């Protein structure tokens, strides 16, 4: 299903993949041009100036600053073009698109767990729609893993205790490999599966078929009740704790005068270690949930908080 043994070029399933191919081909051409003088020169000189062969061996200076500077700076400037091209593509890959579909991924020894916003979850397989920006929002439960899709030419480490992201826009339907590319222990080489890029309609159908009762956000809301968060944070009663409605993405003034933006990492950290980043104007009474709430429930809680709309400007 993934092509044939004789293929020496990977499938390209996105514009980014095609551009990466162009970049590497062009760079290869340049390096061949730069190294040809060495290979040809060495072979030619080795034959022409062998001992016993008659040749003109009179030579002048064995050092020439002009020549040396030329062959240092010339290739350097030529290669800089590729540095710039690669850097520009990289920055584009690293700048997350606004909107689009966000899929959460949790890496652990030795499987991938994916959660779609509608609450559908899958293991090692990943379904995505074609032609849509997809952001992978990733965290590891144990060691460092890395999420790698060769046909999209992208990978990103998945770290414990820290969210990392990766986005892509596939433009060809089909099934492609998905690997863990950071060595993570015994079954590292079997930690992977298949990404299936589908027509949007087929994706919707797939979502329906693997349906779940609850979207991530509503699952998060249920957790918000069951872990007792709502006891303090619910509604307008801001006496004991700040309301979390519309918190996501907003600046939070801290006790020590700093301000942090309430992003995924901040919210996750506040749940696990409330004693970090004390908030201005509140007494810290929140219990720490470290070791209590699992990564996937954390994702649900963050999804819920994110879904609670926009808070009126403070």
């Amino acid at each position, binding site marked *: 299903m993934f092509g044939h043994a004789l293929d020496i070029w990977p499938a390209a399933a996105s514009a980014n993949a095609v551009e990466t191919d162009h970049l590497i081909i062009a760079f290869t051409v340049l390096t061949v041009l730069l190294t040809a003088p060495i290979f040809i020169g*060495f072979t030619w000189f080795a034959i022409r100036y062998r001992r016993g062969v008659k040749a003109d061996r009179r030579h002048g200076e064995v050092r020439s600053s002009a020549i040396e500077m030329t062959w240092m700076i010339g290739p350097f400037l030529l290669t800089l073009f590729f540095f710039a091209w690669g850097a520009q593509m*990289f920055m584009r890959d690293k700048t997350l698109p606004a909107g689009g579909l966000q899929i959460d991924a949790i890496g652990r020894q030795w499987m991938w767990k994916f959660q779609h916003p509608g609450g559908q979850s899958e293991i090692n397989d990943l379904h995505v729609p074609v032609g849509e920006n997809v952001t992978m929002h990733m965290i590891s439960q144990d060691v460092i893993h890395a999420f*790698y899709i060769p046909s999209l030419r992208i990978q990103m480490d998945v*770290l414990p205790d*820290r969210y990392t992201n990766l986005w892509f826009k596939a433009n060809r339907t089909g099934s492609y490999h998905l690997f863990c590319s950071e060595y993570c222990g015994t079954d590292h080489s079997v930690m992977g599966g298949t990404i299936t890029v589908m027509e949007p309609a087929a994706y919707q159908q797939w979502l329906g078929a693997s349906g779940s009762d609850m979207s991530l956000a509503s699952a998060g809301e249920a957790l918000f009740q069951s872990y007792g968060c709502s006891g303090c944070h619910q509604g307008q009663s801001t006496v004991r704790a700040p309301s979390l409605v519309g918190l996501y993405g907003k600046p939070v003034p801290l006790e020590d005068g700093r301000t942090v933006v309430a992003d995924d990492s901040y919210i996750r950290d506040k749940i696990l270690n409330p004693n970090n980043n004390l908030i201005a104007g509140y007494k810290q009474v929140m219990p720490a949930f470290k070791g209590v709430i699992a990564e996937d429930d954390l994702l649900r809680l963050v999804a819920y908080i994110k879904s609670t709309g926009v808070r009126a400007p403070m």
Partner: protein
Amino acid sequence: MTYAAQRDAHVPHATIDAPKDYLHITHTVKSWLLSTDHKRIGILYLISITGFFFVGAVAAGLLRLSLVVPDGSIFTNDTYNKLFTIHGVVMVWFFMIPSIPATFGNFLLPIMIGAKDLAFPKLNTTSWYVFMTGALFAMLSVLFGGIDTGWTFYAPLSTAFSNTYVSLALVGVIVVGFSSILTGLNFIVTVHTMRAPGMTWFRMPIFVWTMYAVSMIFLLATPVITMALILLVMERTFKIGVFDPALGGDPVLFEHLFWFYSHPAVYIMVLPGMGVISEIVPAFARKKLFGYKFVAYASIGLATITFFVWGHHMFVNGQSDYASVTFSFLSFAVAVPSAVKVYNWTATIHKGTLVLDTPMVYAMGYIGLFVIGGLTGLFLATLSIDEHVHDTYFVVAHFHYIMVGGTVLAFLGGLHYWWPKFTGRMYNEAWGRISAVLMFVGFNVTFAPQFILGYLGMPRRYHVYPAEFQLMNIMSSAGATILAFAYVFPFVYLLYSLWFGKKAPDNPWDAKGLEWMTTSPPPLHNFIKPPVVDFEAYDYAARVPEA
């Protein structure tokens, strides 16, 4: 009379009143094990690292055997992981890093600058013992069942999730680090204080320059890995929470500390190779090294800027994107000059008088592999290419080209070049040339397919892989078989030469440099009379045109 003695009365004429050479002064095992003679210590290192090389090579052979089938049915995943870990650990820390500096550096550096010995001979003996102690710990960890963290020991896998003998191996690597530091210190002081009269800085052979540059890296970078690994051991033992996020640590911190050493370590592997090749090429082209001063400066320059590029190992680990762009740029700035250094060797043989003896054939193989290894390094420094091929077989191919091309071929080239000096015996020239060609061919068949595998997307450290990668893997394993012969072959005929080889003349290649002006093998204090240097490095006379 030797050429040098004919030309210059200051240079001792070695064959007059030749005293007993360093090999024959005493014969007991104790006289070797307690020797403070830099030459004997060099030979001790040579024997030790050859042993480690074969340990690493057997592991490599088993890895390649296992990868012939895609389903991993030959070994268990655990066994495979332990094999590549031990292969990496042994090859990096017990072969490559000490290889050229500890063997040729020890043996040749004092002779090349006209000194009697290193500045601290007893420290030198100590450093070999330190090295062997470290190796003992690492080997014990293998005997107890091996370790499965990879030679990079990334946390928290190595601290919280591995129940193999990681600490034992770490102690081994830490201890070996001290031996590097001692050797580096000894070399630096020796170069500063023990040069013979007339041996100015710009008369030193490039090999000495590169040893000097490498010593700086030893001194400045090794303490960082020592510290990082000590923290790792403490984390394993006392759960101190430096790297493990479950304890409040940061795993990326370990990556920074690790690569802050391990990137410069690449130049510990590359620079000595450049030094060896810079001796061989002029000797077999009978021409002064093109741009001598430039190559000397470049060695120091490379040793310096290599400290500023460690971040290019971490483009996809979540470090700041601007940091990545900076590290990418700096990597271009290092890689291009090192790659274009080969233009100097090419220019050196232009209008030379070339003799294609074994060392030169190795040197030519080296240049071919080094160019490919160096330029694929530029590909990896290109951000969006690395985003695809990072941690794939493309990287495996690249670092084998650089490390095997840059270190092993230079090492073997140097071994063949100085073998008559070390041992007083000649080896069979035809066999030598065959082994060099075989190695070049075997090497390319083994590692060239891995560039394709990597671009196809096969991650490294993979034991089980999709079936469509099998063909390239089989090619690679077939190449490894050729390569295995190419490694065993020189081992056999060099050993054979020790007993049956022709007696070597003092200067079999008619080469320049103080090491060729003393006897083969040299006497205890290297020279009968201390030499006086009144000639430039690579003083190959401009030849009378033969046309």
